[in-house]
């Protein structure tokens, strides 16, 4: 049999055509982050919660904020009901505040036994929700963030208080953002703080984070090395206690870029699935590239662009930098608006292109 297939079976995947919005581009009001000061608190402490609400260029609506909490779920095995559909039943929600920022006092109604139990292992997580709504356009968004809760201060155990103060998580504080153009030879040229960004030009944004912003902390784990998973269930309490390890860790800071327009390059080395035991930071300092190309673009060049740089520390701490710059077409040769964006030189081992 001789068969001439006009189309290979392999092109079947070409029927995958969908046009969904990029998660990293801001089309409507969204909550991108919440900074809790402090991110780790004790029962009875007061915490200021500041949201990062992103608005698209030209947004003219009015944002109403509503801070929500949810009644304790029955399934609290992992702290405050880490279920798939947390507080799916909205009748169990109640309003904490309608202010732009929330000042939250950690209540003593939290299940103390669980707070105590989880105090050695990443703490008890109290989730707080912010719902924003455009009073005019009707768009709304909901986001929640965990506050790490530790047991209340114990005057009878000053050592515990001291240890808590030493180990508690803090938010990173970011330095000013540096902006460079990146040419074909990877040469960096600083861009003035008030200069307009131009089309068809690669920009590199850098946050030269002080290493001191990366906290060391201790982690408790039960070591199952060398044990068949089916035999774990047979371990006695004594054997489990013998396998408890206290490990010194260092925070891994991660950068994410959101924008109102343009495309961005790689902002993070991919995390290895296994054996990721390197102590050196996988990406440091935090850098990301961005460009807005115009060839083939149907929309007009925006008068301004807004960029949000968010750093998280993996334990609930975070900080951000927001940049709004005027934008102009400039004189650079046009490049295809869908072309991949060159990544920062330190991340070149991986393919270029937008990574959502």
């Amino acid at each position, binding site marked *: 049999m001789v068969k001439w297939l006009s189309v290979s079976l392999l092109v079947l995947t070409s029927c995958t055509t969908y046009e969904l919005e990029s998660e990293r581009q801001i089309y409507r009001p969204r909550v991108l982050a919440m900074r809790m000061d402090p991110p780790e608190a004790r029962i009875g402490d007061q915490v200021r919660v500041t949201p990062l609400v992103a608005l698209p260029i030209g947004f003219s609506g009015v944002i109403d904020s509503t801070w929500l909490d949810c009644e304790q779920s029955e399934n609290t095995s992992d702290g405050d009901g880490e279920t798939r559909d947390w507080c799916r039943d909205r009748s169990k929600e109640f309003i904490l505040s309608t202010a732009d920022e929330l000042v939250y006092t950690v209540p003593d109604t939290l299940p103390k036994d669980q707070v105590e139990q989880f105090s050695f292992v990443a703490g008890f997580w109290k989730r707080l929700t912010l719902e924003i709504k455009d009073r005019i356009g009707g768009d709304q968004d909901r986001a929640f963030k965990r506050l790490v809760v530790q047991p209340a201060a114990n005057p009878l155990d000053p050592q515990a208080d001291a240890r808590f103060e030493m180990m508690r998580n803090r938010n990173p504080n970011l330095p000013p953002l540096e902006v460079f153009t990146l040419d074909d030879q990877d040469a960096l040229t600083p861009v003035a703080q008030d200069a307009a960004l131009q089309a068809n030009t690669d920009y590199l944004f850098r946050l030269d984070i002080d290493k001191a912003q990366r906290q060391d902390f201790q982690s408790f784990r039960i070591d199952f090395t060398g044990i068949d998973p*089916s035999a774990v269930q047979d371990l006695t309490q004594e054997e489990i206690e013998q396998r408890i390890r206290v490990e010194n860790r260092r925070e891994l800071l991660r950068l994410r870029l959101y924008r109102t327009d343009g495309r961005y390059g790689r902002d993070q080395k991919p995390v290895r699935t296994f054996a990721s035991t390197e102590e050196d930071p996988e990406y440091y300092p935090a850098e990301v590239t961005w460009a807005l190309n115009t060839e083939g673009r149907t929309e007009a060049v925006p008068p301004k662009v807004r960029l949000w740089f968010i750093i998280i520390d993996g334990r609930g701490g975070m900080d951000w930098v927001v940049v709004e710059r005027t934008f102009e077409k400039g004189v650079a040769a046009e490049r295809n608006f869908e072309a991949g964006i060159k990544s920062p030189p330190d991340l070149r081992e991986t393919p270029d292109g937008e990574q959502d």
Partner: protein
Amino acid sequence: MAFGANPPTETVSLPLLFLLLALSPDDQSEQRASAAPPKGGLIQLPELINGGTPDYPEALIGSGKNGKCILLVDIDDAGLVQEINVQKCDDPAFAEAAFAVMPHYTFIPGATATGTVPVRITWQADFQHPVEAKPEPEKPKPVRISGKVREGGTGVVLAAADVTCVGQDVYARADERGRFELRGVADGDCVLQASAPGYFARKKTIKLKPNEAVELTLYLSPKASNAMRTVVRGRKEETHMTRRILEAEELGRVPGTFGDPIRAIERLPGVARTPFLGGGGGLVVRGAEPQDSGYYLDGVPIPALFHLGGGPSVIHPDFVGQLDFLPGGFGAHYGRSIAGIVEVRSRASRGDRFSGKIDVDLLDSGFRLEGPVAGRKDLSFGLSGRRSYIDVLLPLVTSVAGGPDASIQPIYWDYQARLDYKKGTTRAGLRFYGFDDVLVLAASDDDAAARAGEPPGLGIHGGVHRMVLDGRMKLDKKTELKGSLMLGHQFTGGEFGEDIYWNAGINELGIRSDLTYKLSKEHHFITGIDIGFQDLGLETQLPTVAGFERVFPGGAFTEDLGVLKLDENDRGSGYGVHATVRSKLFDRLTLLPGVRLDAYVWDGQDRLSVEPRLQARLMLAPKDRHLLKISGGKYSKLPEPAELSDSFGNPELELKGTWQYGLGYEYRPDPFFHVDLTAFYKKMFNLVEQNPDFVSGGSAPGLINNGDGRAYGLEVMLRHRPSPRPVYGWIAYTLSRSERYDRGDRDPEWTLFSLDQTHILSSVVGYKWGKGWSLGTTVRWVTGNPTTPRLGARFDIDSRFYRPLRGDRRTDRLPDYFQMDLRLEKKSSAKRNSFIWFVDVLNLTNRQNIEFYIYQYDQRAYSGIAGVPFFPSFGIEWSW
């Protein structure tokens, strides 16, 4: 000859003559006074110079009598006969015959020294009865044109074909070997015409030179609706509630299957549609999981029907002779399945001649060879094989600038080798078959991937190798015995990067034997054994939680993973015994009570299942047209080896099972057309589910027998089998509902099965309008698969993704599926070569059938991923 034809000199001896002369002169003188006696001695005896021989008397013909006459003949001196007297004659008729001719004799007269003299001589005439008169054979005319008549394309000899030299009234009929001879054809042009029932007549002009003989082979093309090929069957004495049989002629022509016969099953009632090209490792039959159905090749279970889960079938299409599909309610013969049965019945290799086929396409190449062994008609062989080469071609494409960063490279091959013995009712066969699948996800630049710290590639590997020895024979008029022995090895393996791999192999032995004993004309007893042994070896290195640590969402969780190396060996065996009595009562009612006992031993755990089954079939008047049928029974199955694994499953899992009930009606107005309606209900229990109480490192097993399910529905099939009529095909409709009892994290409730499809309508219609042309079309309209609605989402700032807010489970559906496929085919033949040109088009209307949704990050919008687009395939098949 009547007369002895002896010359007188031989019959009249001289001593006797002299004696006569001495004794008779006086008498002669007395009688012939006028005759002068010779004076002196004779110096010359009379010598016959002219005279005919007397004929054998007609009156004595048939008497068988031989005899003689002794006559006294007086010859005058001129040599003329003057008088004849009978001295002695065996029969008066002999004398009459002699007298009829002898007076006309002329002699050289006798003479003495003085001259010629009258002489009396004694003459003896002998008479012999004539032998049975044999007609003189007509001299045969010379053979001018001879040869054989064969079917074009296949070379099959056509007995009783008529061959005529038009206009010369010369005709011959081919013998049983297809050979013919035309004699007496005149020199010059002969318009030779050959014809046979079911074939197009063919004319050929032959120029014959003087004294020339021509030998040739005439090939006749079969008509599309070939009456010679139609097999008319009455109702088979069926032992299963519903058996849907697809025959070879239908199988290769179903549009949308690319000539892959096994895929035709997906168009039958009771089979749900699986996404994209289907297959997916099995069939979804009456709302059950694919692995719950049983797949057999000639009675021996096979682990997969298709390469790579949903690719080409693992059996060469040319060796698929028939497909039996039993959607449920089957008899005790089949076990270890709780859904449907698919039995591929391979075609025995042909022993009448050597034939073959080579096929080449963009994806793979294959061959088929078959023929007699050592010229024996009772022993034949068959060989076939196939190998893909996408892995070779794809890098040529992906190396082009702009190609994808990674590609999927499927590699598959299969083989079948067989010996078939056939003598009388005895059949035996030895078969070797197997297949091998490799699926590699390869980066376009392995070095770059390695520098980036990405895995060098993902590969999975699996396959089967089998040897099967089977046979069937009649022990006596009442007893038939069938049996098979299978030895095999199946394996699966894979790797992900350098750290993760797994290799599992199963050595297997299967023994099956069935015996049918006719207790009487109405009562048959069918029993058999079904034994299987499996030896599983597993070697794996997998990621595992190397410790327990509670990590904040978004934290560096990866450091908690470790690698675990495991070796596991399990042994299992299954022992099945079944018995069924087929009783025909009142000439209309057939009862089939049966029972099956299956015992399983897996890794030291015993399980036993007793499965009663009952079927009843009632013929309604007029006989053989209307049939009512009911069935009920219990079915069970051992969970999959992976589910019973010590390391990954739960070795204490129980058998999962179903109770199945069916009620059906068949109407068969003629041998080729029938209507089949079947209602079914299936209750599923002990299904294997994830244990909601399972916690990594905890004491609860990961899997438990906590699943319940139910499926019910109605199947309708209108079918016209291939016949002398030009139309064939079927229309199948299934109305069904399949549910599972969801004991998830919400309130327990019945929810839809993930591939529940309320309406499944399939039509396969082919039309053969002659001269080798045929057109086929398949239409499928199916309710969309259930989905769970998304009510919105909340952004989890720590994890940095939106968590969807789901509605009630599987309460929404994808859009309905509709697809029309088309196949246009032209068959022609030249001598022993057969060619089929075809166009096979998938999704003729290019409908965008949504297979699943991709949701926007915030669940506000979604986009459907469509299935197969408009997909034409053009081709030609060549076989000889």
